[in-house]
């Protein structure tokens, strides 16, 4: 077995050192009733060639996004990731390192986490960011719990235009955590006009709103922020498309108290939904209520600058049942990919990338508006928009897929009663030919 270095001779010699007659003797504490005497009903070990063949056959059963005109978004976006990103994160010193609990031999990880935190804070317009969470949706649940801790209030208002899966995750996590938990989840408003401010009361801990929202609309949140703050509550802003931060005023500028997001767009592939990267940023004054790992700067005995994980008394391994969260892992390698990709882009590159995305979406909107039976709902958007179609959206998407066009996500996959809506995204990876292919296929399907 290629991954197991011990030979039978080694095993015999080592058992001799231990003074055990057989390896079974080492398992003697296992109750006899639970000992398996033979290997389980599973295939035997195989060489690389056979395993690769098996897995490649499974991979071949999927329609690869890059092989077709592709417009699927709704919380995960297909972007071009520079070749050097994948190369660098595959370096064994990054890939096979552990959490940097021993800072003297983990400065590589710690320094990029410090760079990552700084990039995220600047992108979101906040003071501080943590070293990442599992993904955007779980970060959203953590933000709600954090707002409840800070305000010592219970009520949570979720915008109906928050990604429905994010709202689901918040409901899952809070379902058992508060005896009198009150989640107020609004109905989706694909055409806007949602009254969030009117729902705030003296028991409101936070208002959670996404920008651009699930339907792609962009809003100025400044007035909402003021209302939220007047009531002593916090504004939690969700960003599911990190590239948008290169084009749209930051949540921090609009008055957000906690910003969380999905960072997959920068550095990570689609990966069928994971692993992704939770971004989490807040104001300086709330830093001790923040969940997750934090990397901070300090010096060594010689006065040299170095980095350590810090403020760990918030965390489960010290505070146990009193921790701010039970979270242990972060999404380190995806954070590294984000940091490298962002470093390669730089400010100029990010802005250009964001503008390219927007330009393609504008082109997409223009092409769709000309298709009979299609109505574009958005007055504003970044790289994603919602259309109303004249036939059931789920059937339209299937019919497009049959024509080898992946034309977005039917909103009925999330919300009942939204049967005629499709959310579509365009990124820098889409060509004019892709847009023409989609428009042409839609014309056929809706005819």
């Amino acid at each position, binding site marked *: 077995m290629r991954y*197991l270095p011990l030979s039978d001779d080694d095993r015999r010699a080592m058992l001799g050192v231990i003074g055990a007659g057989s390896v079974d003797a080492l398992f003697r504490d296992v109750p006899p009733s*639970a000992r398996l005497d033979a290997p*389980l009903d599973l295939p035997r070990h195989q060489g690389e060639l056979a395993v690769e063949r098996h897995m490649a056959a499974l991979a071949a059963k999927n329609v690869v996004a890059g092989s077709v005109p592709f417009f699927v978004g709704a919380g995960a976006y297909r972007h071009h990731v520079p070749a050097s990103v994948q190369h660098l994160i595959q370096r064994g010193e990054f890939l096979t390192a552990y959490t940097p609990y021993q800072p003297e031999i983990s400065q590589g990880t710690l320094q990029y986490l410090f760079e990552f935190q700084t990039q995220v804070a600047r992108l979101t317009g906040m003071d501080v960011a943590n070293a990442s969470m599992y993904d955007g949706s*779980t970060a959203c649940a953590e933000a709600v719990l954090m707002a409840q801790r800070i305000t010592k209030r219970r009520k949570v208002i979720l915008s109906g235009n928050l*990604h429905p899966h994010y709202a689901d995750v918040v409901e899952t996590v809070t379902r058992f955590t508060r005896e009198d938990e009150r989640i107020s989840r609004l109905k989706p408003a694909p055409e806007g006009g949602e009254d969030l401010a009117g729902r705030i009361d003296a028991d409101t801990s936070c208002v959670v709103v996404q920008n651009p929202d699930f339907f792609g609309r962009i*809003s100025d949140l400044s007035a909402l922020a003021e209302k939220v703050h007047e009531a002593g509550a916090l504004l939690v802003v969700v960003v599911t498309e990190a590239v948008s931060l290169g084009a749209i005023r930051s949540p921090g500028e609009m008055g957000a108290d906690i910003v969380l997001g999905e960072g997959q767009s920068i550095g990570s592939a689609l990966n069928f939904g994971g692993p992704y990267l939770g971004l989490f940023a807040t104001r300086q004054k709330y830093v001790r209520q923040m969940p997750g790992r934090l990397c901070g700067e300090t010096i060594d*005995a010689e006065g040299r600058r170095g980095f350590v994980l810090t403020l760990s008394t918030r965390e489960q391994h010290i505070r146990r049942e009193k921790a701010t969260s039970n979270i242990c892992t972060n999404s380190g390698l995806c954070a590294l990919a984000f940091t490298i990709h962002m470093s390669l882009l730089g400010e100029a590159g990010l802005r250009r990338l964001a503008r390219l995305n927007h330009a393609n979406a504008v082109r997409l909107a223009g092409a769709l508006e000309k298709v009979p039976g299609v109505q574009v709902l958005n007055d504003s958007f970044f790289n994603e928009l919602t259309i109303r179609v004249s036939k059931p959206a789920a059937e339209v998407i299937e019919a497009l897929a049959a024509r080898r066009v992946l034309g977005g996500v039917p909103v009925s996959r999330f919300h009942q009663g939204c049967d005629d809506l499709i959310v579509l995204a365009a990124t820098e990876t889409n060509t004019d030919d892709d847009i023409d292919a989609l428009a042409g296929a839609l014309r056929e399907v809706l005819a």
Partner: protein
Amino acid sequence: MNRQGRPTAPAAASGEAASGTWTGNRALDLQESLLFEQGGWERTGVDLPEAELADDRLGGLARTAPIGLPGLSEPEAVRHYTRLSCKNYAIDMGLFPLGSCTMKHNPRLNEKVAAMPGFADIHPLQPVSTVQGALEVMDQLSRWLSVLTGMPGVALSPKAGAHGELCGLMVIRAALEARGDARKRVLVPESAHGTNPATAALCAYDVDPIPATPDGRVDVAAMREKLGPDVAAIMLTNPNTCGLFERDIVEIAEAVHAAGAFFYCDGANFNAIVGRVRPGDLGVDAMHINLHKTFSTPHGGGGPGAGPVVFSEALAPFIPPANVVRHGGGFALREDVPHAQVGRMTAFHGQMGMFVRALTYMLSHGGDGLRQVAEDAVLNANYVRESLKDVMTPSYPGPCMHEVLFDDRFLKDTGVSTLDFAKALIDEGFHPMTMYFPLVVHGAMLVEPTETESRASLDEFIGAMRALAVAAKNGETERFAAAPRFAPIGRLDETRAARQPVLTWQPPEPKQAAE
């Protein structure tokens, strides 16, 4: 922001004193400044065309103010991050004896397969007819996990071990509520991972600690006393965090079930028993599996992990979505859930990239190879234990399972602490063992070598540990106090970091103009 304590030019200021060179570099050990100290606002490593766009549709909300993100050209970026990588210890470099973390070799075939476009370049919300291969991977992985654990229900979506614990406890709570049984307490042994009590608290349970016996196991009598109609579950790690198999596990499970409670097993240490013991046969109702431990997906410097959870028959109806189901010769994804079930735990379907790696690992090993994994992991740990027991102090009698626990009795009166010992091990070329955990012994050192170490590699490690233990006993303590002396950086001032946290880079204060 607090900017105190940030030397603006660390290498130039003190490099010579510390390194004995003018640059602060020491041959292959190269100083590397932060991205923010070397990048440029206009510089970029990505060539993108200028977009053709007449009028934007951003609703008047275009971002105009500078963001503050420096860029690097590709050669600069490659060099920057390569230099940083060289400041890390990693499994690829040497034995990583971090107890409770299972730092085993990460096969590169896993990486190759995960990068196949058929897995990496597919979207979670594509029509299911276009992702049948992905759903089949999830189905096959579920089957492997189910057979290996003897438990029928599998929830794949949890993103990491602690997330899996949360899933497990929420499912237990949902099952109890479905039978109209509100319970308040969760029993957790003192030796448990910190995530266990934190998770129980997150599910609004009161945490009730169970003491350990002198031989490092759950005190069954004390547990029985705490069991009652308000106990929802017991959270137990088996093998436990002292590296020992809970001998009375079947009796514990029966008592827990008799009290109407559920048995949650923390599966962090599954590597010790995979293929030899099925947790389902022990009476476990729910157990998360860290794919990044037992099934070799890379730790990545702290994630991403993956924490699928397996469930007994009683709990399986309550697991969260999304679930893969067989449907007309193919696979479908069930995403809607009745209220009794636990709701969605994450936006999509879990850590697909890790599922692919873990399944590749399982297929490579097969049932026979996985059994050998557990046997070799246990053999290696006992070999280390036996080879060190005369110079160090194992906390409990052997045999141990996949990890061996020492305490600091052998350092008594030497002036050397567990921390010093660990830092000295860095100078000898090894990542330290887990320190000060579990909390049940003084100055704990938890050593887990894993099955992917050769006998020669174990002997080198044993040699280093013996040398250090003997040196400490002989009063040669200088090396310990100064350790690590040969790492890229010395011991860091963690008090300073925590008192005045500097969490983001800030530009240096402008220098005072010369008068």
